[in-house]
């Protein structure tokens, strides 16, 4: 285990706990910045598009992570906020607002309306909140239809390309630019998120998650804090929605459906609730496994002439892999990652059963 001798108050405030950590993060940054080079080299950006998709998922995932992982409020309605961001973005762009303004605004407006919608249900906990947001998610499609003048309703709406000071960015025609753009947004949000967690706002979120009673007794206003969390969360989801729109090119009332909301929740749980990297781990799982399965199947077909043609097998296989993930790592992939890291840090002193799960027991959620 690494012991960090703390000699000043800064030690706890710094973004990175120690030099090595900073180095690792720098390497990671270099890696993600250099990734496109590989695709340039092979001259095929197909998979880069999928990686970009993962980043978009991760942005939405961070939004939900803040709400569910750090504030303890489950939501099965985040596709709604994505929809808001996406449609606001389309409309602003349609009205001639430059992307550089329209994009952040679409997040903020989604955040604002998200908060308005969430306000009446902030008193709810656990299953009840999940169900209320689920209801919201189910109704989203209907609202998109009702708001036809802005959304194109059932017929759908085409999403204009991004234009930043004359630079045209499109998911397919300029995949590299699109990747860097999404990457930039993701990194910016990670930085914001980490700042939040080391300041009073973030602490008040986790306080509410762990004990509402204590939080109140420490002077935290539940409604305002939860609303803030909802706002930030919906803003991130809105931004992701806007980017998702650019990556889909065309959206309808069925695009941001319940399945998408569920996928987001699933993603952060698999990634590891309560950890920022969890959003990324989860997005990788959710975004890459289907691609891997599909390509694996194609590979079997082309190389070994093995054709597996059972309809729906891919979804089932994906679900099965998820079951395995949950079963073997209920704390999420980030939990597993921490163990692997500890293993290396401790190397010779590591005991095999060190991370054996001690029996654990649940208590009711109905006492709040």
């Amino acid at each position, binding site marked *: 285990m690494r012991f960090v001798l703390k000699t000043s*108050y*800064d030690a*706890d*405030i710094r973004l990175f706990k120690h030099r090595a950590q900073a180095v690792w993060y720098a390497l990671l940054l270099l890696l993600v910045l250099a990734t496109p080079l590989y695709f340039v080299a092979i001259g095929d950006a197909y998979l880069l598009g999928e990686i970009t998709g993962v980043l978009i998922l991760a942005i939405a995932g961070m939004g939900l992570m803040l709400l569910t992982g750090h504030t303890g409020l489950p939501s099965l309605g985040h596709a709604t906020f994505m929809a808001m961001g996406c449609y606001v973005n389309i409309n602003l762009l349609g009205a001639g607002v430059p992307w550089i303004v329209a994009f952040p605004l679409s997040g903020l407006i989604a955040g604002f309306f998200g908060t308005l919608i969430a306000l009446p249900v902030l008193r709810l906990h656990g299953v009840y909140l999940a169900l209320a947001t689920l209801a919201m998610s189910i109704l989203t499609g209907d609202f998109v239809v009702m708001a036809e003048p802005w959304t194109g309703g059932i017929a759908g709406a085409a999403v204009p390309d991004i234009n930043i000071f004359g630079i045209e960015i499109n998911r397919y025609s300029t995949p590299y630019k699109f990747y860097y753009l999404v990457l930039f947004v993701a990194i910016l949000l990670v930085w*914001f998120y980490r*700042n*939040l967690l*080391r*300041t*009073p*706002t*973030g*602490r*008040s979120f*986790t*306080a509410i*998650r*762990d*004990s509402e*009673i*204590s*939080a*109140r*007794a*420490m*002077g*935290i*206003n*539940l409604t305002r804090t939860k609303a*803030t969390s909802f706002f*930030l969360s919906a803003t991130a989801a809105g931004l992701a929605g806007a980017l998702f729109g650019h990556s889909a090119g065309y959206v309808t009332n069925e695009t941001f459906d319940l399945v998408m909301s569920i996928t987001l929740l699933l993603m952060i749980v698999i990634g590891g609730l*309560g950890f920022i990297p969890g959003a990324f781990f989860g997005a990788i799982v959710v975004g890459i496994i289907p691609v891997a399965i599909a390509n694996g199947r194609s590979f079997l077909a082309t190389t070994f002439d093995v054709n597996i043609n059972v309809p729906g097998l891919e979804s089932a296989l994906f679900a099965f892999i998820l079951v395995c993930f949950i079963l073997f790592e209920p704390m999420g992939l980030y939990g597993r990652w921490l163990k692997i890291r500890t293993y290396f840090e401790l190397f010779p002193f590591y005991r095999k059963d060190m991370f054996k799960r001690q029996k654990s027991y649940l208590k009711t959620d109905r006492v709040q």
Partner: protein
Amino acid sequence: MSLLDIDSVTLRFGGLVAVDNVSLSVNEGEVFALVGPNGAGKSTVFNLVSRFYDPAAGSIRFDGHDLLQCNADQVPGFGIARTFQNIELFEQATVLQNLLVGRHRHRQTGLLSNIVFSPKAYREEVRHRKAVEEVMDFLNLQPYRDKMIGGLPYGVRKVVELGRALASEPRLLLLDEPASGLSVEETQDMAFWIEDIQTQMGISVMMVEHDMGLVSAVSNRVMALSDGKELATGTAAEVQSHPDVIAAYLGTGEISKTGTSRA
């Protein structure tokens, strides 16, 4: 001069009168103890002050402010901090983080400056940490600084809770059974801390406690409650010798190996 004034407060849960027309006041700088049998309504009085419950009648004033006019989350703003009988810490956070939440009422930065971690937010953080480190030094919590609450023994948690309350730099500290579950040695530490809190920090304390040793060691005044009603008020010695208090609460203190002490 009295800091907290509870005046003829009554609270019912359905048919049960948990607090029955109770009046008390805690003076500036004093340690005021509330004792009484289980279910007497002591914690309920705390919960009334914390504004978790609305009284059916009566008034609660703190330093001239009408507490009944405000919400639970505004109470700490006046300088009232509390601990809980059954420990309510933020389990998935470290000791340091718990104490930092205690500083919430001194927060001065807004959302925006938090998100971008502005210099102002940085300076505020440094201030908070300084205050928290002092509390940790005072309560000998440094060894547990970065430990998760989830894995701490009961006694340490009690101290962390006290620390969290102290971190908010209150004027009045409400301690609900601070020494329950503590060993004799730890109880003595607790007594010294309470003394220091009173004398050196100038914080008034109101506490509920069943350990009469601790009560007599630290409290200036004691009130005994039973069935929601006041039984007796006075110095520790006075209350302890009050026959009703002995009958309802204290008992003889000896274990008879043959029969119950309830005659």
